């Protein structure tokens, strides 16, 4: 175990996979000489050279499409889309090309592409640089979706993503980059599709990812002091979704709350609620709840954004309600 930041976890995963497999390459805007806008690729250009770590033009469609074409012909590209919100300008390449290539060709090729994107709000970047973009891709079969919430998961999921033979989107929450935590020194792969029970508890099941996992944990500590015992499950990947672990937890607690940073419409939380209801209706003692951001774009001002994002206080309040209903 080493103590690393989330950002260092990402960098280490990239370095190890570049080292391990010549076919792995990185590409993206300023990922090379500059080490990435979030410094997540710092040092890799010097170490692996400009052919393996490639600076691109501001051409996200070309970045993703190039990664797809390269993956079908022998490389294992890891593309960076600087802010996840820029997935908008290459949405076709991700949703219509990358996600569907294998299927449309009847399985003729595998598509080992990883796309890393800085995700989420809470840092004052306003409406076009703060979204929880994983939710844009939930209705697009063919993509795996990673949503790490700790340095160890950032490291372990990214490595697993790079070794996976399918397109994997990895969302790195920008508020988490500086967060520290233990990261295993051995391979430390985190299997895609395996949730983590982050905290065991008997009163209530909370499902949360990324920044909200951290806030849910803090809220759980608040409630623990009040005698409410919260279980927290972090699915870590939304596709594939480890529904079993969630359902098992709900079977124990009878109560489900999904805590998410995005608006409720079309959210992963709504998807989880619908799926749990389908499989574990009998286990539910009370209505499942969503704790979400507002149904508005994300505002800039601190007073607005702070109110927009579910805070530890608000989460604690909702969990208290749910536990005592």
């Amino acid at each position: 175990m080493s103590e690393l930041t989330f950002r260092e976890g990402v960098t280490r995963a990239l370095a190890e996979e570049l080292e391990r497999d010549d076919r792995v390459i990185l590409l993206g805007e300023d990922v090379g000489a500059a080490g990435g806008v979030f410094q997540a690729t710092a040092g890799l250009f010097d170490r692996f050279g400009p052919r393996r770590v490639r600076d691109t033009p501001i051409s996200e469609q070309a970045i993703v499409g190039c990664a797809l074409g390269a993956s079908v012909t022998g490389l294992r590209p890891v593309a960076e889309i600087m802010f996840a919100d820029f997935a908008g300008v290459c949405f076709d390449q991700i949703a219509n090309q990358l996600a569907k290539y294998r299927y449309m060709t009847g399985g003729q090729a595998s598509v080992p592409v990883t796309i890393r994107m800085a995700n989420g709000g809470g840092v004052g970047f306003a409406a076009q640089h703060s979204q929880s973009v994983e939710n844009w891709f939930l209705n697009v079969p063919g993509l795996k979706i990673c949503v790490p919430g700790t340095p160890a998961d950032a490291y372990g999921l990214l490595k697993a993503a790079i070794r996976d033979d399918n397109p994997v989107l990895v969302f790195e929450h920008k508020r988490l980059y500086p967060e520290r935590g233990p990261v295993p020194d051995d391979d430390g792969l985190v299997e895609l599709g395996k949730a983590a029970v982050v905290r065991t508890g008997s009163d209530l099941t909370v499902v949360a990812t990324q920044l909200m996992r951290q806030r849910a944990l803090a809220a759980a500590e608040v409630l623990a002091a009040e005698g409410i015992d919260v279980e927290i499950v972090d699915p870590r990947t939304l596709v594939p979704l480890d529904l079993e672990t969630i359902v098992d937890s709900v079977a124990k607690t009878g109560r489900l709350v999904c805590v998410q940073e995005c608006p409720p419409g079309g959210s992963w939380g709504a998807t989880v609620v619908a799926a749990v209801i389908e499989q574990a209706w009998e286990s539910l003692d009370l209505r499942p709840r969503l704790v979400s951001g507002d149904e508005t774009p994300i505002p800039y001002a601190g007073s607005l954004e702070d109110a927009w994002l579910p805070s530890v206080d608000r989460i604690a309040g909702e969990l208290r309600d749910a536990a005592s209903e």
Partner: protein
Amino acid sequence: MSYSNAAFLNKHTVISDDENTEELQPVSTVALPELGLLLDLQRRMLEIRFFEDEVMRLFMLNLVRGSTHLCTGQEAVSVGACSALREGDTMTCTYRGHGAVLAMGAPLDRTMAEILGKAEGLCRGKGGSMHLTDLSVGALGSFAIVGAHLPFATGAALSAQQLETGAVSIAFFGDATTNIGAFHEALNLAAVWKLPVVFICENNLYGEYSPLASTTPVERLADRAASYAMTAQRVDGNDVLAVRDAVGAAVARARDGEGPTMLEALTYRQKGHSRTDAGAYRPPGELEEWLARDPIARFERLLTEAGVASAAELAELLERAEADVREATERAIAWSEPDAKQRLEDVFA
């Protein structure tokens, strides 16, 4: 060379970059093709022509679903270009890609089977007319979103560059595709990374029902390559040898590490954009003019005039092609549809 009038064959048209010199010019960059190859080119063009006729017939019989986009009249571009490739090279194309995929060597029967949605189809019936793909012959995909394959083509070229395979990636696309963002991004990326890729614009004068002039003020699309400091050339797309030479030269440059090329092949879509289109927008006489420049009839004349083959030999070639397509179609029709359960396969590796 075993045929009598080789010089004649060298007199096909290359349209130079200077507007005023669109005339016959000898092409020197590529060695004169051998007899077998010349007949092969004609056979492939004929197969594609008959293939598209069959597709239309089957479409009318309601055996083809959705839509279908024929390349009739543009066979010389597909066949000329793909004949300039070698094993390991790759090709991407569009929904109008039957000809390109066949030109790479995809089997007639399994290609037709895909269009018919059969389990034996190239893509197990999952792709259909707009997504024909045969990785085993380097046909990496037919893409139905305009321009979406151009970034893909740069990726295949990146692999070639990075893995030092010596392979070249070519991509076919239409005139109207030069107006979409992905075109711009892909050409720029290819240029700045000096990727071994050849972008082949099939200028058939229309994007769907819109003539080129209504969607861009630029007439010579090859000029757009200048925005990427990229070598470009216009070529007579109804002259299979001219296309072959131009692509051959571009491919050779790409293999030598000299980077990408854009070619603009001037051609004409003899049928409607898709099955529903009767072509009401064509000015009177235009179709007739282009029918007179039909690439297959032209090459046939050339072959006879050059003494490569007799009229009888060429008639036999034609009959064989027609029969091959007919038999392949019969096989394809006889194959069964995929079992419904197969829809759940091939999502993830």
